């Protein structure tokens, strides 16, 4: 099984991945609380980016409403914990289930009725907004006044109830990111992965080769939704409060897809590189502003926006593919050409 997974990955890439993993493992030993929280954010975005990438990067379905699954996942596990004291490890079953159902409904409607391209993207936004306003009125989880989890106990790490220190959350997120990376790697090399990429490149040709396009598109949406909802569970227990305005908001959807787009859509390493780059860029800009004594709110976002602009203008396939070529890691980097 493991041997199969490693097949086709160049040795240099493997070594680089190993080194990166080692670095991430020992990072908390040296990091301040601040760097640890930044590290958590990076891994969080790498994970959701990876999940989104399944749908867009692999299967070519542009979703701009992934906050829907983050929010559903977060609320489902949190509500079960608060109302019934159910451990999030059991509750995440509900999270995954609810997110999968939502994804399946959206996918079914869209793919059955031939909603594609821009229209599909807007449909995903509509679903997320619908959920946001709905949860504003959902009194079982306190509606818009916010859903609070009992405060975390920081002295002991209770992994079973996800109550614990940021370090615990960091390692949890790291484990999830690694698992997502391996899972995506395996998926991409499976029958499903081949079919997804075929659908992404040309749905008509894929169908003529016996691929049940509807079924595999559905699979992409549902798997992506399920994975994304897991990030929502961690979000809920890390922040201990949920507001529909925050978690279902379209700005969260956008935030979580910037990483994979900047990193390199359809590649395995792209979401990680993108999350690292964007979070690092945002934090670095804040530092730079601080050091320059610029105290004007908004200036940082202007520069951040300009950086995004430059990247997307000059690196149409994201940062990773050219970087991988440069480092001689091309095979592991995955490829994606202009459609």
């Amino acid at each position, binding site marked *: 099984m493991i041997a199969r997974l490693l097949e086709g990955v160049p040795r240099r890439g493997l070594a680089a991945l190993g080194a990166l993993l080692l670095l991430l493992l020992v990072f908390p030993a040296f990091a301040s609380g601040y760097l640890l929280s930044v590290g958590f954010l990076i891994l969080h975005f790498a994970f959701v980016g990876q999940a989104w990438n399944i749908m867009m990067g692999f299967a070519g379905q542009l979703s701009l409403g992934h906050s829907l699954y983050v929010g559903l996942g977060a609320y489902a596990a949190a509500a079960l914990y608060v109302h019934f004291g159910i451990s999030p490890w059991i509750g995440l079953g509900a999270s995954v289930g609810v997110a999968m159902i939502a994804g399946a409904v959206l996918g079914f409607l869209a793919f059955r009725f031939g909603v594609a391209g821009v229209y599909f993207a807007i449909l995903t936004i509509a679903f997320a907004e619908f959920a946001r306003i709905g949860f504003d009125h959902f009194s079982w989880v306190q509606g818009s006044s916010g859903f609070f989890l009992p405060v975390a106990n920081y002295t002991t790490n209770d992994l079973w109830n996800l109550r614990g220190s940021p370090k615990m959350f960091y390692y949890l997120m790291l484990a999830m990111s690694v698992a997502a990376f391996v899972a995506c790697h395996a998926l991409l090399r499976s*029958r499903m992965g081949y079919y997804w*990429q075929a659908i992404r*490149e040309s749905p*008509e040709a894929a*169908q*003529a080769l*016996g691929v049940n*396009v509807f079924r595999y598109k559905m699979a992409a949406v549902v798997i992506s939704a399920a994975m994304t909802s897991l990030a929502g569970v961690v979000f809920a227990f890390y922040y201990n409060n949920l507001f529909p305005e925050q978690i279902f908001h379209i700005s969260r959807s956008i935030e979580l897809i910037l990483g994979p787009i900047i990193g390199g859509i359809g590649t395995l390493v792209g979401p990680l590189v993108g999350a690292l780059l964007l979070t690092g860029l945002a934090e670095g800009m804040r530092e730079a502003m601080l050091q320059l004594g610029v105290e004007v709110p908004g200036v940082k976002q202007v520069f951040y926006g300009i950086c995004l602009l430059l990247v997307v203008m000059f690196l149409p396939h994201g940062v990773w593919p050219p970087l991988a070529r440069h480092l001689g890691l091309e095979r592991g980097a995955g490829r994606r050409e202009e459609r």
Partner: protein
Amino acid sequence: MSARLEVSAISKSFRGLRAVQGASFEVPAGSIVGLIGPNGAGKTTCFNMIAGVFPPDAGEVHLEGRRIDGWRPDQVCAAGVGRTFQIVKPFSGLTVLENVTVGALLRSNDVSSAQKRADEILEKLGLGPKRDLLASALTLPDRKRLEVARALATQPRLLLLDEVMAGLRPTECDQMVAVFRELNRAEGITILLIEHVMRAVMALAQRIVVLHHGEVIAQGTPEEVVRDPAVLESYLGEETEI
């Protein structure tokens, strides 16, 4: 010979425009049949109805006795029909090998055996040296070959070829003809081909069906068809490469 494919009185209109009108023909098992006709005669529409891209407005299509009209393309493919597209549709972002592997996965249990099968087909079609190139990097003749390779990888019993020789040089064309003849002989694949290159049709087809304005105006052996006055008339002024 029993019929592998039986098309009976199929019709199709687009926005009131009749593309195919009551076309009927048969493709016997193990044979090679050519579908010819001037541009806009409804050949590709016929193909699309057989392959399941859209259902016929009227009429029936039977594959080995099973009625398949109205099926989805992937179901038709799974039933044993492989097809190529007139305007090639390669998976541009994938390598040549990966392109063909997608087809081979239909009848393989796992990815590695599909890859093995894909490799064999690439060799057969002379694409072996290019297996690791991106499909987008191929020349047009190679893309045409890739179309055929992908369709073959699904191990069809009936192969629908939509102008795969167009744009090929005569020598390349002859190579292709040889490949199809070999496939037909050694593996017993039945072939229905749309072709403008008459040189290829004449060389390959045992039977020819002529479409004009969506109707079948003649069918028979190549010799019979070229002597048919109706066919000659319909082709008058058309480019013919005999």
